[in-house]
């Protein structure tokens, strides 16, 4: 498929999200779409997939202009869209979700469930997901849900697949597998539009790039002609120094204990023990299904522990009430922003204040001035792009929503932060700012439990790294010990077998 989008403009009320943007994708090409948070990438793709109409401009496919695009029409044109936010029906089974809107039928009226199940399972297996196509989606964890979204796009013979930050919840192994599938499809002249804030990914899989900034087209070209540094500067529009943040920081002496977990057991993990010290950054990592997802929520009192204890300096924690955990000085930035983070009907300001209200604000009445000042501070610190903090949070781009969630927790000034994939969807520049922030927090004597599956993050931040495999700690590595290969080996269990 040859796609051209010409002079696309789109406004949301006073916000001009796209201004006269043109770009094109050739057949059998993987096209990287780059831009800061709020640059308009998702909006452009939404126009292409018919989620909403453009204000002006044309979409031309194989030389023919398409008018009045709708999700259905774009499906019929063999365009698939993997959305930035999860869009699955939690109550339906995996295969039903995958075929939603395009069921196989037999005898004219019946859904051919068996055929759907076989086909869905084939695709899931080809991606090495280990997901059973007949499970109900609500039982999957965030990474698995994302894999289902991807698998869904691979079911049918598509000609253009749009991937809007498909890898935010995936680990490197899953990403590798995804890339090999993409390459194979590319051979069959399927085109891709690939949106990501992870530079290495873009450079390894994409052929061409287009950069957007503030809703405007900046530049197109071949990845082979630029480097990461150059790309980053293109999209933020100024010079960028990607200093390694971590190198400046000395490993903290094993000072006071701030959090100690003993023999924690939950539905998907067991016997987890560790001690977190003041000023320390500890990273937890593991493949999907390794239990990291639930461990993070359990440490915060949000999932039930079936055994074990968590204590702070002040003694054992009662893990039954999240608010008590918060008041003991623990904060958690949850993963899966759409389901667990944002409150779509509330303003940006209220979204920002919520955790502060429950943990810190001891009067029943709210002081507007104080609330506004708090938000202003966070806005500056995290460079959140908002027009009015009274707007709904859903009017923000994905990355900016994530920043509001971050700010919600940073305001608490907790002693311990559990950060579960906190850079989900955050752009390159801002990511560095956040790493810097995490290190700063540590230097102020706060401690961080960082859950991630991206090696660069581990590398940037970790003082120590725990790798989970099948719900147990398979390795505890110090900064000197870990490497990408070793972590991978530990998280797939091969490492342990080698030891035996």
């Amino acid at each position: 498929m040859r796609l051209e989008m010409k002079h696309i403009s789109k406004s949301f009320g006073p916000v001009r999200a796209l201004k006269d943007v043109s770009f094109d994708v050739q057949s059998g090409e993987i096209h990287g779409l780059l831009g800061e948070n709020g640059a308009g990438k998702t909006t452009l793709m939404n126009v292409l997939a018919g989620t909403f109409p453009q204000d002006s401009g044309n979409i031309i496919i194989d030389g023919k202009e398409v008018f009045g695009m709708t999700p259905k029409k774009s499906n019929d044109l063999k365009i698939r869209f993997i959305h930035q936010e999860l869009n699955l029906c939690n109550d339906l089974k995996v295969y039903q979700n995958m075929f939603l809107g395009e069921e196989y039928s037999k005898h004219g009226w019946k859904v051919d469930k068996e055929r759907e199940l076989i086909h869905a399972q084939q695709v899931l297996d080809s991606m090495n997901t280990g997901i059973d196509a007949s499970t109900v989606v609500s039982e999957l964890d965030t990474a698995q849900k994302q894999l289902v979204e991807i698998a869904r796009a691979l079911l049918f013979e598509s000609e253009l697949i749009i991937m809007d930050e498909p890898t935010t919840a995936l680990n490197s192994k899953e990403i590798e597998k995804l890339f090999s599938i993409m390459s194979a499809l590319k051979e069959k002249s399927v085109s891709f539009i690939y949106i990501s804030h992870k530079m290495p990914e873009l450079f390894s899989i994409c052929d061409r790039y287009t950069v957007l900034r503030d809703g405007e087209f900046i530049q197109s070209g071949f990845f082979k002609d630029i480097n990461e540094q150059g790309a980053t500067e293109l999209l933020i529009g100024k010079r960028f120094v990607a200093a390694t943040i971590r190198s400046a920081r000395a490993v903290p002496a094993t000072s006071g204990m701030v959090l100690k977990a003993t023999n924690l057991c939950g539905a998907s993990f067991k016997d987890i023990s560790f001690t977190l010290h003041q000023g320390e950054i500890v990273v937890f990592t593991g493949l999907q299904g390794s239990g990291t997802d639930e461990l993070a929520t359990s440490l915060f009192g949000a999932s039930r522990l079936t055994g074990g204890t968590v204590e702070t300096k002040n003694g054992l924690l009662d893990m039954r009430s999240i608010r008590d955990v918060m008041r003991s000085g623990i904060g958690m930035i949850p993963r899966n922003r759409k389901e667990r983070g944002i409150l779509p009907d509330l303003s940006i300001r209220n979204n920002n204040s919520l955790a502060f209200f429950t943990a810190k604000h001891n009067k029943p009445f709210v002081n507007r001035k104080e609330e506004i000042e708090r938000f202003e501070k966070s806005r500056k610190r995290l460079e959140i792009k908002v027009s009015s903090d009274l707007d709904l949070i859903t009017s923000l781009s994905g990355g900016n929503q994530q920043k509001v969630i971050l700010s919600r927790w940073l305001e608490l000034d907790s002693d311990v932060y559990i950060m579960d994939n906190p850079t989900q969807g955050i752009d390159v520049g801002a990511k560095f700012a956040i790493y810097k922030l995490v290190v700063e927090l540590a230097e102020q004597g706060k401690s961080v439990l960082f859950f991630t599956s991206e090696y660069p993050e581990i590398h940037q931040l970790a003082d120590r790294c725990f790798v989970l495999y099948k719900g147990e700690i398979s390795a505890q590595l110090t900064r000197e010990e870990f490497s990408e290969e070793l972590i991978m080996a530990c998280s797939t269990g091969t490492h342990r077998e080698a030891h035996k």
Partner: protein
Amino acid sequence: MKALALNGKLGKASWRNLTTNYSHWLSFILLMIVAVIVSPSFLSWNNITNQFVQGAVVGICAMGMSLIISSGMIDLSVGSSVALISALGVNVLNSQHSLLLCLVFCLVAGMLVGLINGLLVTKGRIAPFIVTLATMSAWRSVINQLGQGGPFTVDKTMYASFRNIAAGRTLGIPNLMLFLIIVTVVTALLMSKTKFGTYVYAVGSNQQAARLSGIHVDRVKTLIFTYAGTLYGLAAFLLASRLTSIQAASAGSGYEMDAIAAVAIGGTSMEGGRGKIIGTFLGVLMLRIINTVLIMANVPPFLNGLVTGVIIIVAVLAQSSKKGK
């Protein structure tokens, strides 16, 4: 080979699934036990068929309500709609002297009534609760105005043959029972075997996701109301045949609450996304059994409401506790 593997997969329903999926049976069996203890004659063939017969009219409505609730909506206009269609149906019967015409009229009128709800919800973007609150009030008013308060009574000429539809039996089984079973089976097939069924749950589960999958959410919602409306039409036809006289002011009143209660105690989540037609069927029977037990046990009439309320809570509780959570 492949088929076998598949069966294995489908059969892999875990214990947890079993208890959540079949918990409405639990409430049902509990209630049955209570009924038999209160009166051993409960299990007579006569009484059993009677439960179905009495449950038929509301039960058919409840099947429509199942779809509506599974898709995350609600319908308060059931009783008024049934009353309106019944009343007009009697008029059609009296003027046309044709059972068939009357039936067709009822079904078409039901479709229209449902369509109106559906269009107001989808085109008007008004919450189903409000739309159907308004149509509930409106249809009752229309029928009162048409009947000027008086009843709509089936003429002598058609009385016997019309009454025989609801009162008659086929192969020893009461017709009303057959109607209820057929509607249940058709609705169950619709929901479990067709695309449309999947769409209903998808809309109830995550409307945005459904829309982005290319499902015409508005069309699905309109169809749901239309299907439900058609069932109300059938229910209205049967009600008219059962009563042979429709009181403008009171006919069908309270049907919406009965239908919703049946759906709820049948284990369908009020939030949408999930639902079990067989559960609704059991729910309808449970409501009937509660009523019968009240009479068998000679519960003081003023306390019936209290006992019914408590039983509904207990029945739902029995299920939700099984659900763990």
